[in-house]
Every structure is written in structure tokens, then in C-alpha cells.
């Protein structure tokens, strides 16, 4: 005779097989374990960044911070696209990211898209003003991290652009570059070096590495000439007359009889080979590129020099700006005060300025460090020039770059306009700036309309609400 306990047992077993019960039990136990297990957060500050070079430079500072506070700084190096998605994902979902994020300029646009109060980074404006950092840091360096008058990141760099030229070839030809003040001078003085050695009817050497598809260089030249994609108020001005004139001018460098530019990929081995063989004589060179050249093209050591960029007009700006990073503090940081202290101490440290320059050729935006002696040391790679000083001389003049969530969109539309005009010009035989101007006007107006179409959907930018 079965007892009631036996009957209940039999009922349980009839519901599921023993194996299924074991699986169900394991699922429930593991689920409970996962749920009740506390989320362990490593002690100290969490810093996410994209540059392994920066990470290795920050090691001494993180050790010093640990000695000072007893708390470590845990650095994670993450590629730019992944870092961007991770930070954006955290901001959108409102979940914890890290205490500090070092961001590249192209990442931050969408992070600034919403109302000011919902930007995922801590607004640093008041801290920066209260601690007198506005006066200590090069003012243009704040602009990419400023939206609607508020600053959301501490600037890491200035990134002025100079012109790197093949001194071995140019000086061997007896040419003195000091006579070059404008791009017109540059073309006139160096054109005799554009030769066709193998007799195939094509020059084997061009004067400048630049092409209508070079996204960043287009912006560099536009900014140098006084053009802009956005005003400080965030208005898109891609279709301005100045931009049209500048685009017509720089595109004429790639077209017809006047062509003196070569399309060299600055990131590939093939591009490096062309650079080394002297396919182009000059390159638009931001400070951060110096370190890359020294590491990746040691064959050029002693064969390259730097000079200020030729201006578009006599007396015009001799520099521009390219790239940039900032340190931001996500609002979800558990210790904003500690994160701010670490970021400020790190970026304002003379030791970091030295390492930044000696390792990567990058100059600090901290103006009081510009008088430090290491910036005057001659660089063997650059034929004994004190490159630090050359960049610092131009640093106060770098153009401001207003931040916009639509920056990347505008940059892509600028490239579309440039490619469209260049192709139309090639098919119609137009090549002078005067002939190209109507085309660039039309193309840039269309580009601006395209960006504005997107901007109009954003009530915080268009003021629609």
C-alpha cells in the first residue's frame, strides 16, 4: 500500500523524467547563483581609452596615483569603433561605463546630440573655470569638446599641422624653402622638381600628398584657409562662399595641367613605400604623425624637415589642425571627484608633456609647459630641427573647431562634394579655380542642404522645440 509521500513522489516523477529534473534543477541553481552573486567592481578608477601608446605613457602617472591615494587606475585599451559603441551603449542604457574615457574627436559627435542635461559626460565647465584651467590650456583645444557653451572634456593635445618636406631632394636641387610663403609660392618654387624620369609621359614625382578623397586633409586645408563646417553656434556653413573658393582652389591642385598633388595612402605599406621613394615632396603633418613616421618609416631619418604650411594668401594662417582627444568623466562614475583629480593631474603634469612629446611628437596644450627645454632638442629624424618648438610656435594659431553631432556627416558630405566636382571637372576639362568655383558652390550648397536635413530633425540643434 503506497503512502501519500510515495504518491506525491510518483506525481513529481510523472511530470518530468529524472534527467529533465536534473537539468531544471541545474538551471534554477545556476540562475540563482548568477542573480545573487555580487557584481564585483575592481577597486580604484576605471579608465577606457583607444590608444595603446597613450596607455603606456600613463603608467607612471597611474603608479603615482596609487602611491598617493592607495587606489589603482585600471586602464582598458579598446579600439575606437568598439569604444565608441560601448560608451554610447552605456549612455543610452544609463548603465555604468567607466570612471574616465579618453575619446577621439570623431567619437564624440553623437554623444553631444541631445539636451545638455542628458549628455553622458559630466559638465566640466565650472571646474575648469574655478581651477583657472581656461588660462592655462591653449583655448582652441577646448572647442571640439564644447557644445552650446559647455565643456565636457579636458583637452589632451593641440595637434597643429605643419608641412613636412623631403629636404634631401629639395635642398639637393638648391631650393631654399624660406622663399615659400603661400601655396602659390610652393607650386612655383617646387614645380621644376616634378619630373618624368622614365619617359612615360607621367611625372614620377609630385609636390604634395593630397587628393580629393582625402577626408581629413580636405578639412585641414579648409580650416587653414578660414573655412569651416559649423559656426560656434552649431549652424552648418558648409555651403559658404569661402568654403567654395577654398575647395575650388585645392581641387585645382589635383586637376589638369596644374596638377601637382599625388594620391598617397598615409596608412598602408604601399603608401609608405611611395613616401619613401619620393613620389611626393611634401605632406600635411600634424604633430602626432611625427611619431608614426619615425616608427614606421625610419628610412626617412635625416631626409625630412618641417616648415609652416604655406598660406592661401600672403600674411595668411600658416597652420591648421587635425585630430584630437579629450578625457571625459561619465556621469555614472562612482567617484567623480577622484576621476577629475586624476584626469587633471595627469593632463597637466609636465612629465606627461615630456613623454607625450618624446614618444609621439605630440605637444601639450598646457601653455606653461611650452617653455620646457625638451621641446628645443634637435630631432635627428627631422634633420636636426627642434620640431617641438616649430609646432609650439604655431599652436596658439590653430583654428577653432566647433563641436557638432553632425561633424562626421558634414565631413562625409564635404568629401562627396569634392569628389563630385573633381570628376565633373575631369570629364569636362575644367581645372582652374575660376572654372571650378560654380561647381564647388553648387556641390557645397547641396552638401549643406543634406546636413541640414538631418539637423532639422534634432530639436536641440534646430531650435524646433
Amino acid at each position, binding site marked *: 500500500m503506497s503512502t501519500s509521500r510515495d504518491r506525491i513522489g510518483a506525481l513529481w516523477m510523472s511530470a518530468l523524467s529524472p534527467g529533465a529534473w536534473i537539468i531544471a534543477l541545474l538551471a534554477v541553481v545556476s540562475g540563482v547563483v548568477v542573480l545573487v552573486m555580487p557584481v564585483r567592481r575592481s577597486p580604484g578608477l576605471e579608465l577606457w581609452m583607444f590608444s595603446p601608446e597613450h596607455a603606456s605613457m600613463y603608467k607612471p602617472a597611474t603608479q603615482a596615483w596609487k602611491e598617493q591615494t592607495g587606489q589603482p587606475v585600471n586602464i582598458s585599451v579598446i579600439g575606437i569603433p568598439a569604444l565608441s559603441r560601448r560608451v554610447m551603449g552605456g549612455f543610452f542604457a544609463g548603465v555604468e561605463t567607466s570612471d574616465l574615457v579618453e575619446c577621439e574627436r570623431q567619437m564624440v559627435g553623437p554623444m553631444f546630440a541631445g539636451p545638455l542635461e542628458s*549628455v553622458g559626460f559630466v559638465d566640466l565647465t565650472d571646474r575648469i573655470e574655478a581651477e583657472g584651467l581656461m588660462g592655462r590650456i591653449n583655448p582652441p583645444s577646448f572647442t571640439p569638446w564644447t557644445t552650446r557653451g559647455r565643456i565636457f572634456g579636458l583637452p589632451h593635445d593641440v595637434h597643429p599641422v605643419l608641412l613636412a618636406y623631403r629636404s634631401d631632394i629639395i635642398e639637393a636641387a638648391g631650393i631654399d624653402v624660406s622663399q615659400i610663403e603661400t601655396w602659390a609660392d610652393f607650386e612655383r618654387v617646387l614645380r621644376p622638381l616634378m619630373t618624368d624620369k622614365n619617359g612615360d609621359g607621367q611625372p614620377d614625382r609630385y609636390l604634395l600628398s593630397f587628393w580629393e578623397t582625402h577626408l581629413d586633409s580636405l578639412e585641414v586645408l579648409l580650416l587653414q584657409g578660414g573655412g569651416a563646417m559649423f559656426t560656434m553656434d552649431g549652424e552648418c556653413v558648409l555651403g559658404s562662399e569661402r568654403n567654395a573658393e577654398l575647395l575650388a582652389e585645392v581641387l585645382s591642385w589635383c586637376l589638369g595641367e596644374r596638377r601637382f598633388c599625388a594620391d598617397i595612402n598615409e596608412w598602408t605599406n604601399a603608401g609608405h613605400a611611395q613616401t619613401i621613394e619620393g613620389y611626393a615632396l611634401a605632406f600635411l603633418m600634424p604633430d602626432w604623425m611625427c611619431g608614426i613616421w619615425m616608427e614606421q618609416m625610419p628610412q626617412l631619418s635625416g631626409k625630412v624637415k618641417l616648415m609652416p604650411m604655406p598660406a592661401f594668401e600672403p600674411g595668411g594662417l600658416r597652420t591648421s589642425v587635425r585630430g584630437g582627444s579629450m578625457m571625459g568623466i561619465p556621469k555614472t562614475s562612482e567617484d567623480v571627484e577622484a576621476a577629475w583629480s586624476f584626469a587633471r593631474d595627469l593632463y597637466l603634469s609636465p612629465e606627461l608633456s615630456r613623454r607625450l612629446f618624446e614618444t609621439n611628437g605630440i605637444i601639450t596644450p598646457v601653455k606653461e609647459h611650452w617653455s620646457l627645454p625638451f621641446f628645443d632638442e634637435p630631432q635627428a629624424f627631422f634633420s636636426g630641427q627642434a620640431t617641438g618648438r616649430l609646432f609650439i610656435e604655431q599652436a596658439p594659431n590653430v583654428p577653432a573647431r566647433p563641436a557638432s553631432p553632425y561633424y562626421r556627416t558634414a565631413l562625409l558630405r564635404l568629401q562627396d562634394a569634392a569628389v563630385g566636382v573633381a570628376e565633373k571637372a575631369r570629364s569636362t576639362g575644367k581645372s582652374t579655380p575660376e572654372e571650378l568655383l560654380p561647381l564647388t558652390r553648387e556641390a557645397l550648397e547641396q552638401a549643406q542642404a543634406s546636413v541640414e536635413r538631418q539637423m532639422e530633425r534634432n530639436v*536641440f540643434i534646430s531650435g524646433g522645440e
Partner: protein
Amino acid sequence: MARGPASANRTAYLFLAPFLVLFAVFTVYPLILSAVLAVQQTHGPGFARFVGMDNFVALAADPLFHKAVRNTIVYTLGSMFIQLPLALGLAMLLNQPGLKGRGFYRLIFFSPQLMGLVFVAMLAALIFEKRSGLLNQALQGLVGGVLDPESAFPWVRVLHDVVWLDFPWLQTFVMPMLILISLWMYVGYNMVYFLAALQNIDKSLVEACAVDGAGPALRFWHVTIPSIRPVASFVVLLSLIGSLQLFELPYILLDQTGGPQNRGLTIVMYLYQSGFETGDLGYASAIGWVLALMLVALALGQIFLMRREER
């Protein structure tokens, strides 16, 4: 004690549960959320407002979206009408009785599929690069050296005068290049399906057809095609879905942009740009739903056509 059908059902559900839970969390929930997002305007974190069908209306008037759709359709047509016939042709060649080394050829044609798409894109970028690219170097050496600059044919003179070393394939012919690369990648893959289908054709049908006097073309049309139709439909559907979702190849090949003049911009790339580069998740969701509806419509169309054929 014997367990009844109810117990068996419960066990089945228990085993299905992990999949169902994951499916619900990672597919159903995001689908619902994206449907909600598609009727919202989102700008940056923490802001969303209901805009009804505005995102879809804006899409209908968005020239960039039109371009992305056009590019995607061109790529899809290229995939369907070049890739699949080539795959079938290759499969028929490999299905020839008495062919030696069939396994070897099958491996050779299938092997591009073993490479990651990212590597293929990087390799292609090197091949099509101006000046140092393999293709331009070869063309400069072959065409430039062989063609007669004084030829009586104008096109020969034009081809001779082209500076092949500087020819910008990835600037001028983005979509043909993408189709070419995908041919290399997927022809062998689709060929394997077709080959399996061809090997399953009832030989007696072919022989009977031949006895009735049908030539190769008639045998192909009346025996081969109907016999492989289920597999062909499956391959067509896979190609359609894959082509309409094209993203990684142009994304890597064109340096994370839509290419010059957006010639390589696809629907999914535009979705990515809108969602992750501009932060407009609502608009990106609307693009995703339009793509999903296109896929559903095409799949339903194909099922309808298949059923009509079967009748």
C-alpha cells in the same frame, strides 16, 4: 510508472526553454523595442519623443536613403543574376560524369568562403589600390604595353592612353568591384548547394528525356531545373537576404564610409551611420524596419512564385 504525452510535452518545452528565453531576450524584445524606436525621435541618450510615422516620411524623402536602396538593389541583382548562374554553371561542370579530381575542384572553389569577410575586404583594398595595387600594376604592364597607340580602332587608342597605374577602381567603380569580390567569395559556396542538388537528380529521368530525343538544352530546362528547384529557391532566398544585408565588405573596403559620392553606401551601412555615427536611433530603427519589410515581401513573393510553379 509510465509517463504520458503531457509529461513528454513538458520535457520538450523544458529543453526548448533555453532557446526560447534567449530568443525572447535577444530577438523578440529588441524587435519590439526597435518598433517603438522607429516611431520616436531620439537624439543622444535620455531623449525620445513620439513622432508617429515621421521617421518613415523623412526616409521617403531622403536622397541618401534612396541612394542606399539603389546601391543595395544593384548589388542584389548582381548577386542574383551573375553569381547564381555562375554557381550553377560551375556545379554542372563539376557534375560531369568521369571528371577527375572533383573533390579538389570543389575545395578550391569553396575555399574563399573559409576566409573572413574582413580579410577579404582588406585583401581587395590592396588589389584595387591605385599605383601599387595588383590589378593596376598588371593592367599597366599588359594593356599599356600590348596595345598599339596608333591603332585604327579608337577604343584601342583610348585604352592605351589610360594611365592604368592611377586608375581609381574604388572611386569610380565601387559597386562593380563589390559584386566582383562577392562573386569570388560566394560562387563556390552556392556551387556546393547546386552540386548536391544536381547529384540527387533521378538519372532515369535524364535518360528517359534523352531517349525521347531531347538535347542538352531541353534536358536542362525540363529535367534539371525542375529537379533542383527546391534547392535553387533556398539558394536564391539566402542570396537575397545576404545581399540586402550587405555591410562589412563595403564598410571595411571603403574605410568606414559609403565611399566617394556614397557609391558604396548600402541600406545597412546607412542604418549604422544614422544610429551610431549620428546617434539618431529612431531613424536607424525605421531604416531597419523598411529593410525587414523588403525582406519579408521578397520572401513572400518567392514563396508565391514557387507555389504557383508547383501548381
